[in-house]
């Protein structure tokens, strides 16, 4: 006998059939079904194989805690393993496949593990596979992973989109059961901003399967009316299919909304999942309670189910568990199920109650066996009989389904996410949430409150208390009248059960059974945290939602103490698994990070630029021309053209900072290691910025445009960092200085015009006199362009070593000015050049970048020792620069290096060895920081940091590439390969 769909009843839409398949077998379900209810309706009791022993497993729960019914759904790129059938809504065409079985679910070779089980107990992996160690990676781990697998993820890219959102409210209510709905209604009616989230597809929680009548309505109709009222309130947001998975500091809750996980073909304009961060002034947990399994032999056999889950399948989905059901209970929950089964005309074979008597008011027909336990189940792939121990004898009763009701554990995970521990309540036989939590309250079954009326009352009262704390007045709501609700007595927990034969499972998902717990205690792992790790109980993807309290109860019993003394393990987010997609949100692939574009981006693109990503920027790397087959050909041409004619390079990405204020000069004097106090207006100066430890942080030119106005440039890479640093200095170190900073990187497009003919080109558009006499090297000033049509900032600075200028124009005019320059420069051979040529030109001139300024160098290492001011009272890095180690004679210092054989080459990062020295780290003399083919020299050249470098010019060395075992004989030389006397700069 198997489960089946009843002819009537439930909240499913019988007019809307849905076709789906399980392991390729076509099946039919109804709109409103979960995959689990649809499987049960089709008589599919066996849905998976267990993790370790490959035991046949069925559907145990009707919700988020499901440990057994994990299936793979979807196909191809939408394949999703480890989906809980109990929460997956059914949709037309859903394809589900069972997991962890081979070759088939019915006949599974791995089930032989069951025979090996004496060797597979707790600690088995630790004991068996520890040695020999090398075998772990090669043999044991792959074997174990194959045998004890969950579902397999697809390797294809996820085709769906995800997003994140923030939300704010006065009150967040988690859970839309009786307590949550009442709380949201109370707060909503008072005008508070309320967010109510529920993991289910419709609000109602336990109301959706309770048969009580509320104000003359069915419980589910009551839930529907309450949610309709909530939805009509503009100040309330009701979010279904949304799991609040974590409570974080600042009273922020993480939640994941499954926007389209119930859709066959997700609509492209919506994400499939949305990650919410909800900032709540106050929050109320109305998360309900989890029913506990009972630990008896074969409690994992398909057909054995939680009593409350059986009620849910019966009342909400119209699915009967079988034709002859037994109920094993230690509390009143079992009797509610019995009443509902009876009402649906399903035979209840027996109620096995561990307590001495049935509830006094119970008038049902089924046989009650009091003072009794189920010690084991029998059957092959589903339960066919149970063995009941009572009155000192054992009785076998034929059944086709068994419900178990071990008492309720309030769902308090969120309340424990910020470090507070739950406490054991003997009275409620449950762990309750820690008390006096800041801005978080608990109501309803989550607070161990029993009964719909009491939950509604408490939800409403807690909301009113929260509103009064927030200063929002509210009228107490009239409480509904609840009929047909039975009184519930607190239950004494039933941990260990006598007469068990076979495996009695504690943690279903990780296949941890009773004997494992005993073994852990005997072997000294009785502490709750140790037992968890030793037995793996509670470590599966369900995080022990069903098993943890039983494991604690059993540990307590084995150690002869109260569960209070055992305590719980630590609760951590996430309450249920959250997909990486949701955590990533929209920022994946091309949108992983924003793109930052230079105002000359489109100009470069139309001139044929090849772009390179530099941080967030896209910079033009080179500009290929017809006939050029390699990037080197283009770069060489661009370099030669700058040296012979003139080139134009976009340097807009350099950081630009405007510095104003009466103390601006003093401020710069403190942040740079060289002097800036007396820089004349109209002049630019190269500046070196140190860190407090004395090492160089960044470099750039800073120009004085007015008495209290400077214009600083930074490197592209450190633009943001330098701005933060300057703000730190101005605000945190020297707030007494009048200095004001503004980032102007995006305001100005900056172009370098470099080459012997640069002035000839610029004279055509710059109105001012730019002759060397009027505008010498390092001059800086505002100029007018094209007959006063535009004003620009003009600097005579050079990175290439040629006669060069930088022209800064407001960004919106950048393309126009670049076009005009290209036009004006055509007769002089003006060509654009990119960052590759820029790099070659600066290496030829011995100019450093962050390849050399790599965090290990001080000014003297780069030949800038004389720049460091000896007279300034203080500047960033001054004191630490005086350290002994930074004055050592054998520091690595900047030199040039080139191969003895001009046809040879070497790579950046290669190390320098003495001529005949062995290639060892001990013999390491330094390394190449930058290298390039120099068209000017005609061979590869490099800059290198070498011990005592400048004293060794002319020494023959070997450049050693340890990665490729390449050796290039080379010679150390002056790092300035072009125009060492700087004549070209001044023409």
């Amino acid at each position: 006998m198997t489960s089946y769909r009843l002819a009537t009843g439930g909240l499913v839409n019988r007019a809307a059939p849905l076709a789906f398949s399980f392991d390729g077998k076509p099946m039919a379900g109804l709109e409103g079904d979960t995959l689990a209810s649809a499987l049960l309706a089709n008589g599919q009791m066996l849905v998976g194989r267990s993790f370790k022993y490959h035991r046949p497993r069925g559907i145990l729960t009707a919700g988020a805690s499901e440990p057994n019914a994990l299936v793979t759904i979807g196909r191809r790129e939408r394949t999703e393993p480890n989906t809980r059938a109990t929460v997956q809504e059914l949709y037309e065409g859903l394809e589900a496949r069972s997991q962890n079985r081979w070759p088939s679910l019915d006949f599974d070779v791995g089930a032989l593990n069951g025979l090996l089980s004496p060797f597979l107990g707790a600690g088995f992996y630790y004991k068996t596979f520890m040695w020999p160690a090398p075998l772990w990676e090669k043999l044991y781990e792959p074997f174990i992973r194959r045998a004890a697998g969950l579902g397999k993820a697809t390797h294809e890219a996820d085709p769906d989109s995800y997003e994140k959102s923030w939300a704010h409210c006065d009150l967040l209510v988690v859970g839309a059961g009786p307590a949550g709905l009442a709380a949201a209604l109370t707060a909503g009616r008072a005008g508070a901003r309320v967010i109510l989230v529920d993991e289910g597809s419709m609000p109602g929680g336990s109301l959706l399967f309770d048969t009580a009548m509320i104000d003359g309505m069915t419980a589910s109709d009551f839930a529907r009316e309450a949610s309709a009222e909530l939805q009509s309130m503009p100040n309330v947001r009701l979010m279904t299919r949304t799991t609040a998975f974590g409570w974080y500091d600042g009273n922020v809750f993480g939640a994941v909304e499954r926007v389209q996980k119930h859709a066959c073909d997700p609509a492209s304009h919506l994400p499939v999942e949305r990650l919410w961060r909800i900032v709540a002034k106050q929050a109320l947990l109305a998360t309900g309670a989890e029913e506990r399994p009972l630990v008896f032999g074969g409690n994992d056999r398909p057909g054995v189910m939680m009593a409350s889950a059986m009620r849910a399948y019966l009342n909400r989905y119209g699915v009967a568990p079988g034709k002859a059901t037994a109920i094993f209970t230690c509390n009143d929950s079992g009797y509610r199920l019995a009443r509902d089964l009876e009402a649906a005309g399903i035979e209840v074979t027996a109620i096995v109650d561990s307590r001495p008597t049935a509830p006094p008011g119970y008038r049902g027909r089924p046989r009650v066996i009091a003072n009794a336990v189920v010690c084991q189940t029998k059957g092959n792939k589903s339960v066919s009989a149970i063995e009941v121990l009572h009155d000192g004898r054992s009785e076998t009763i034929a059944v086709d389904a068994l419900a178990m009701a071990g008492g309720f554990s309030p769902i308090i995970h969120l309340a424990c996410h910020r470090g507070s521990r739950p406490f054991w309540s003997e009275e409620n036989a449950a762990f309750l949430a820690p008390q006096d939590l800041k801005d978080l309250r608990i109501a309803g079954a989550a607070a161990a409150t029993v009964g719909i009326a009491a939950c509604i009352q408490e939800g409403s009262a807690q909301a009113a208390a929260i509103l009064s704390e927030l200063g929002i007045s509210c009228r107490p709501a009239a409480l509904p009248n609840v009929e047909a609700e039975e009184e519930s007595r607190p239950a004494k927990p039933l941990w260990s059960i006598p007469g068990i034969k076979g495996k009695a499972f504690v943690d279903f998902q990780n296949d941890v059974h009773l004997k494992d717990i005993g073994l852990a205690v005997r072997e000294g792992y009785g502490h709750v945290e140790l037992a968890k790790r030793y037995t793996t109980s509670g470590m599966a993807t369900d995080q022990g939602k069903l098993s943890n309290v039983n494991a604690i109860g059993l540990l307590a019993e084995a150690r002869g103490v109260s569960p209070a003394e055992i305590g719980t393990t630590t609760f951590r987010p996430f309450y249920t698994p959250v997909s990486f997609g949701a955590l990533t949100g929209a920022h994946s692939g091309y949108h992983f990070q924003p793109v930052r574009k230079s105002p000359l981006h489109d100009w470069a693109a139309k001139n044929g630029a090849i772009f390179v990503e530099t941080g967030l920027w896209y910079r033009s790397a080179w500009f290929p021309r017809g006939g050029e087959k390699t990037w080197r050909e283009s770069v060489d041409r661009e370099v030669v053209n700058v040296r012979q004619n003139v080139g134009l390079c976009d340097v807009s990405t350099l950081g630009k900072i405007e510095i104003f204020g009466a103390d601006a000069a003093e401020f710069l004097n403190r942040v740079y290691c060289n002097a800036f106090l007396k820089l004349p207006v109209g002049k630019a100066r190269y500046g070196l910025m140190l860190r407090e430890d004395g090492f160089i942080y960044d470099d750039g030119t800073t120009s004085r445009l007015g008495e209290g106005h400077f214009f600083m440039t930074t490197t592209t890479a450190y633009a943001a960092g330098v701005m933060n640093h300057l703000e730190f200095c101005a605000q945190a170190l020297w707030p007494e200085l009048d200095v004001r900073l503004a980032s102007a990187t995006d305001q100005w497009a900056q172009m370098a015009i470099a080459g012997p003919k640069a002035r000839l080109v610029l004279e055509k558009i710059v109105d001012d006199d730019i002759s060397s006499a009027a505008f010498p090297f390092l001059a800086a000033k505002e100029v007018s362009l094209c007959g006063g049509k535009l004003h620009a900032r003009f600097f005579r600075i050079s990175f290439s070593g040629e006669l060069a200028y930088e022209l800064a124009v407001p960004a919106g005019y950048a393309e126009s000015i670049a076009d005009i320059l290209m036009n004006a420069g055509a007769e002089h051979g003006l060509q654009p050049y990119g960052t590759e040529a820029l790099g070659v030109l600066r290496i030829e001139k011995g100019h450093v970048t962050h390849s050399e300024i790599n965090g290990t160098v001080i000014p003297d290492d780069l030949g800038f020792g004389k720049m460091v001011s000896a007279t300034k009272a203080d500047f960033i890095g001054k004191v630490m620069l005086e350290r002994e180690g930074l004055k050592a004679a054998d520091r690595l210092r900047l030199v040039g290096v080139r191969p003895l054989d001009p046809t040879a080459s070497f790579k950046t990062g290669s190390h320098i060895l003495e001529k005949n020295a062995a290639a060892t780290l001990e013999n390491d003399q330094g390394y190449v920081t930058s290298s390039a083919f120099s068209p000017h020299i005609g061979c590869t050249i490099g800059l290198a940091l070498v011990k005592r470098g400048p004293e060794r010019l002319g020494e023959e060395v070997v450049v050693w590439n340890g990665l490729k075992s390449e050796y290039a004989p080379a010679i150390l030389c002056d790092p300035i390969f072009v125009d060492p006397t700087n004549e070209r700069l001044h023409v």
Partner: protein
Amino acid sequence: MASLISCPHCGARPKEEFTIKGAVLSRPAADAGHQAWTDYVYLRDNPRGTHREYWHHTSGCRRWLVVTRDTVSHEVGFCQDAAAAKLAEVRP
């Protein structure tokens, strides 16, 4: 997932908007000696409990703040503008 810092200028904002620098230490005078400077540059306490740190509201008002944070509970306490904190220290 969140961590809200109450910027005195902008209100509560998530940590993604901030850049954290580390412990609030006062910069020694240039003649304070190497030991004081070594402490300032290299040595850090690793307190359990209340910790004062520099946070920069990089994607907000761009002010440096002195944030008092509990390293155990993550609770963020008093947040003050760093310039105000420094000036208060100079002229008590």
